[in-house]
């Protein structure tokens, strides 16, 4: 574990050296995600200007949901972006074989190979949104609330990574996994808003099937003191279960790869 942490640090250092070399790239990449987020928020703001609340949720409360999922997404974006291009950039080119002849875990190698700086933009936007919402809503930043928020965001990030990993495994069979990953990933758009505004079906899917709800709605509802019962605490459990499942399936895909070589 310590070995991997140290190794990740070395990968990260090299990555930042590249980014410093392409300074403009860095600025444009991180900046463009900020702009993208701003556009999305503008849409929410213009809708919310017309109505006092959305099914009992005010603009600031929605910002909290939105901010939390943006933070969770940024973790996935920064640390696991290579899962998106795994098929195209590593399986198709044979580059993945290079990972398999090295004495480290190939999944670790894949993730560490490219820290994605574009995610930093998302991270900054997420922090700003959560702070803005918490100030407006008078959420006290007690140690308990801070710890709760941290755990919620990390769990949310892990849920994002687990779902992308699950879908990226399809690359072992179909090589280009982007459409599969995209199909599942896009459903997180639902979780940018309180799940109570949707029909029951969508709520159930976003909680138990594609559990992005734990990356946004449930922790936000808890912080706002809304009664959601045990769901406020399930996030970390769901995250651990999902990443374990995803890793198992990854191993299964890997064993398929070693029998076909694609």
């Amino acid at each position, binding site marked *: 574990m310590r070995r991997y942490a140290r190794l990740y640090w070395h990968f990260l250092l090299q990555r930042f050296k590249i980014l410093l070399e392409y300074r403009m790239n860095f600025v444009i990449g991180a900046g463009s995600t900020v702009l993208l987020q701003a556009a999305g928020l503008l849409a929410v703001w213009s809708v919310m200007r017309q109505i006092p609340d959305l099914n009992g949720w005010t603009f600031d409360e929605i910002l909290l949901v939105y901010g939390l999922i943006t933070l969770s997404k940024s973790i996935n974006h920064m640390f696991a972006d290579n899962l998106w291009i795994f098929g195209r950039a590593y399986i198709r080119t044979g580059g993945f074989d290079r990972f398999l002849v*090295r*004495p480290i875990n190939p999944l670790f190698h894949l993730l560490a190979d490219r820290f994605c700086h574009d995610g930093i933009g998302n991270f900054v936007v997420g922090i700003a949104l959560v702070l803005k919402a918490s100030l407006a809503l008078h959420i006290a930043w007690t140690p308990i609330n801070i710890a709760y928020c941290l755990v919620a965001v990390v769990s949310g990030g892990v849920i994002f990574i687990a779902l992308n990993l699950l879908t990226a495994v399809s690359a072992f069979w179909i090589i280009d996994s982007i459409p599969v990953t995209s199909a599942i990933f896009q459903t997180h758009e639902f979780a940018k808003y309180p799940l109570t505004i949707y029909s029951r079906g969508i709520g159930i899917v976003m909680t138990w099937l594609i559990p992005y709800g734990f990356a946004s709605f449930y922790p936000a509802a808890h912080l706002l003191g809304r009664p959601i019962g045990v769901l406020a605490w399930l996030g970390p459990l769901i995250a651990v279960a999902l990443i374990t499942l995803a890793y198992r399936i990854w191993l299964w895909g890997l064993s398929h790869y070693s029998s076909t070589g694609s």
Partner: protein
Amino acid sequence: MPTIELSHVSKVYRTIKKDSGLRGAVKALFRPHYVEKVAVHDLSFHVDAGEVVGYIGVNGAGKSTTIKMLTGILHPSGGSIRVLGRDPHRERVANAREIGVVFGQRTQLWWDLALRESLNLIANIYELEPARYRQLLAEFAQTLELEELLSVPIRSMSLGQKMRAELAATFLHQPRVVYLDEPTIGLDVMVKERIRAFIRDQNQRNGTTVMLTTHDLDDIEQLCQRVIIIDAGSVVYDGPLSTIKQRFGTFRSIAFETAHPLEIEHLILPLGTAIASHGERALEVRFDRTVTSASQVATALMPQIEAIDFSLAEPDLESIIKQIYAGTHTAALREEVLV
């Protein structure tokens, strides 16, 4: 214990055969039609510590599949593989610590990183001791002439520079076994020489076992004491290079340049000869020197063609191996392998 040991290894790829178009794709999804392709069949050989073995065969003969199985990337469909006593697939990580691989066509370095940074990262992955790493880096920088390249990113390197960088990365953790898949492909003579010298040096000083696939027979002649030839997934020859030359180098050829345009169909060829190639005023005749001799061939042909010049060519390995690939000697070789 041999360093590399394959016994009765087979590899069968099962792929889904798709008909063209969307309909084909949908059909393949619901009712897949599997096609089996045998890449390697009943492959057995072993390599001892410190050997440099040329592993050759035409494209599609099963070379890459073998290398992928030896490195642990693929697992065999049947038979068993041992590298340094381990199953390279089951014990992939332990195996990876002791091997080095060059896949000639693709780099194992980071495209955007300066060579020094790439090597640093590799040293970290293999947990090299800093002092040892510095020593090796200095050594490789000299033998592979990398000094001025250390600050250059891989993407800005020429093919020859890239391959030298690649070799440094491959030997950096001092692997006991190295697989080189086409290490000299597309390189100029000078770079090829340097690379061969480096491989030879590593082999002699550290006793590194090397398996080399190549289409360049100079690589084989200069590096390998032993050659394994595979065809259609099986070994067709395994032995010293000299034996191939002795046994199958019985063909020589004479090239004539003639004063007048040739009338090939009117030529009467002596026994044991065949026309290898001909042009309007050029003729190359191949003969078996156990049946006839150069002077007999010349004597028989000179009166018929009015030669203004002629030359005798030594058998080169390339033409011999071409014959073997073409199946000319397959039967004879198999016999020898059995004996």
